[in-house]
């Protein structure tokens, strides 16, 4: 079973040359569609680079209480996880910044509930610069937040979709599917996809939500439907 990086299977048209197959080492923001939707965390997990290096996962207290904590048996990762629970969102950002100094990590994931005043343009810009300087991916998961001003290089919106049917048991939930929308990006074209995550192969299949023909007929460049 080959463990390929997630973006190998993406829509090539939306990928800038040279980044295919590599994790994006910058600050990316993921908005969960509803509070308590684990699709955002699942999408972030599918985007993390393959390796043995530990992940630093930071939560603020509210998001832990409202959306639960990452559960090791369900994460399905064989690498160490450093889990932090911090009460104030400002401290979450400080801890993420501290983590981005450490080259021994493979990624930093921070979860923040709502729109705290500490999470402003300056704070996200600091995180983005740190992540780019260190060459580490930094993912910011926003629960119940608004898509306000941010310096995140990629901004995603993720919602759960009804899962694929299981061949053995049609009445049971199958492999997860998400509606993934890249609504603002610095390095590639925004777009809207239906993502299907195959956890066994650690592979994410992105299918454009709108067929190419329809886009061409509408006369718009690909992926511009929902620039926010």
């Amino acid at each position, binding site marked *: 079973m080959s463990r390929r990086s997630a973006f190998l299977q993406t829509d090539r048209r939306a990928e800038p040359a040279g980044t295919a197959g590599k994790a994006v080492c910058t600050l990316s923001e993921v908005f969960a569609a*509803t509070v*308590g*939707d*684990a*699709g955002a*965390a*699942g*999408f972030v*997990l599918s985007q993390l680079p393959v390796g043995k*290096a*530990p992940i*630093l996962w930071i939560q603020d207290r509210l998001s832990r209480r409202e*959306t*639960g*904590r*990452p*559960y*090791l*048996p*369900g*994460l399905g990762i*064989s690498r*160490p*996880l*450093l*889990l*932090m*629970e*911090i009460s104030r969102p400002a*401290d979450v950002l*400080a*801890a993420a910044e*501290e*983590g981005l*100094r*450490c*080259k*021994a*990590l493979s990624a930093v994931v921070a979860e923040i509930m709502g729109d705290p005043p500490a999470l402003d343009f300056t704070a996200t810009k600091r995180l983005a610069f740190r992540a780019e300087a260190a060459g580490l991916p930094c993912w910011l998961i926003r629960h119940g937040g608004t898509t306000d001003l941010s310096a995140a290089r990629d901004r995603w919106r993720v*919602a*759960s*979709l*009804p*899962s694929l049917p299981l061949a053995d*048991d049609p*009445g*049971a*939930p199958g492999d*997860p*599917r998400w509606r993934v929308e890249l609504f603002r990006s610095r390095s590639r074209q925004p777009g809207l996809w239906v993502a299907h*995550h195959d956890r066994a192969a650690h592979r994410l299949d992105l299918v454009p939500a709108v067929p190419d023909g329809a886009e061409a007929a509408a006369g718009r460049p690909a992926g511009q439907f929902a620039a926010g």
Partner: protein
Amino acid sequence: MERKQRQDDRLGNSLPDDLPQALMVEGTHGPTVHAVNRAAQQAGVTPGARVTDMRALCPSLHTDYADLAGDQAATDRLALWAQRWCPWTVADRTADGHGLILDTTGADHLWGGEAAMLAGIEGSLSMLGFSARLALAPTWGAAWALARFGPVRAIWRGEQDLAGLPVAALRLGADTVLLLNRLGLKTIGALSAVPRLSLARRFLRAELAENPLLRLDQVTGHLPEPVSPAFAPPAFRADARLAEPIFDPTHHLPGLCEALSTQLAAQDQGARRVRLTVYRTDGEVSRIEVATAAPSRDADHLAFLFRDRLERIDPGFGFDLISLEGTVTERLSKAQTTLAGERNEALDLSRLVDRLTVRFGATAIARPLPRASHIPERAERRAAPLAPMPEDPAPQADRPLRLLDPAEEIRVLYAVPEGPPAQFQWRRRTHRVTRYQGPERIAPEWWRDLPGTRLRDYFRIEDETGRRFWLYREGLHDDGRGGTPRWFLHGMFA
């Protein structure tokens, strides 16, 4: 007495020095005198006598109750403060209870010799407002005797120093002293001239405090009496002595860390716990301690760990000695960095953990590790951030990505009591179940759970918007362990 005077001075209601004053304690036959000031001493007031007698002798005597517990605590604090001269210090609790014992072996040359050290100690104590009688001798007992009955700032020259001192200098009880005096043994010299055998026969069953022979052996060093301080003296210690008291140790910290890491490197050790102690000018000490996740002797790293905590030091009226001690150390060999100039990643990680721990507390960061249990909330445990991963994690059934802790109760509509819910209400929102899988029955762990704990039937549920939840029903109908089973939402799948 002097502590009381200092306290009164601070409160602004101190009495003039030439007024006879005494502190009293409750005795068997009424209050007795505990301590006196110089004026009272000259008026003939003696400690131990009854206050009524002394009032007859000196009608203007001003008395107050002594604070014995406060004295004891002050002496203990002073013993810690005295670690500025040598690491082995202890408050003397044996006889009259106000004395400090310092084992200055190997420390006197740092202070310019024995006489200079005694003068320096006396000067520092008088700056605090305490008068002190000092003596230097090879044993605890001899120093005790010389300090109370010998000349000023006595330094041991030989056993002939003790020969002329009264037997009370042996830390004996009043009854024994009286007995020895009646026997005609008034001095230590006379006592030591008596054959050991007859002394041993006479005081065979006496306690240590009443036994002249054992006390004599303690004075001469035949019976060991070591000084064991409250904190074990650290093997690695760097000091910064300042000419003037300061309030902020920030500027001295890098130099101290540098000195400590040099000491550690010389012996191939790395620090796990480091303590910063400041010795305040008012006779107190204040300390902060940091711990590292892996042994380290990197000066910059150690300095960083203290950086945000320095404000927790209470500087009082300033401090003139800062010491940095490696209290717990582990072996740390010199490691060769690779020729290609790569970084040691494990080292990086331990430093990150240190920084995060110092800033957010030791409980904020943990590494979840799997544990052999079927109960979901027990299937993982919080381990130390650098705990090793198990080699071969056990395969798990399908578990949710996120777990609510604790599980939240939901209201459920179901078709059959034992079956899956058709609809449920969680956080005031209704979710209609479109697909389900289950039940997966997890029985309670009878060897750990309380009797009467109900089993759980877990269902994987997908609602109409595609969100996947993990629900469970606690118990069965008519299982005899409570009423109608309750439903809970325990986790979310990706």
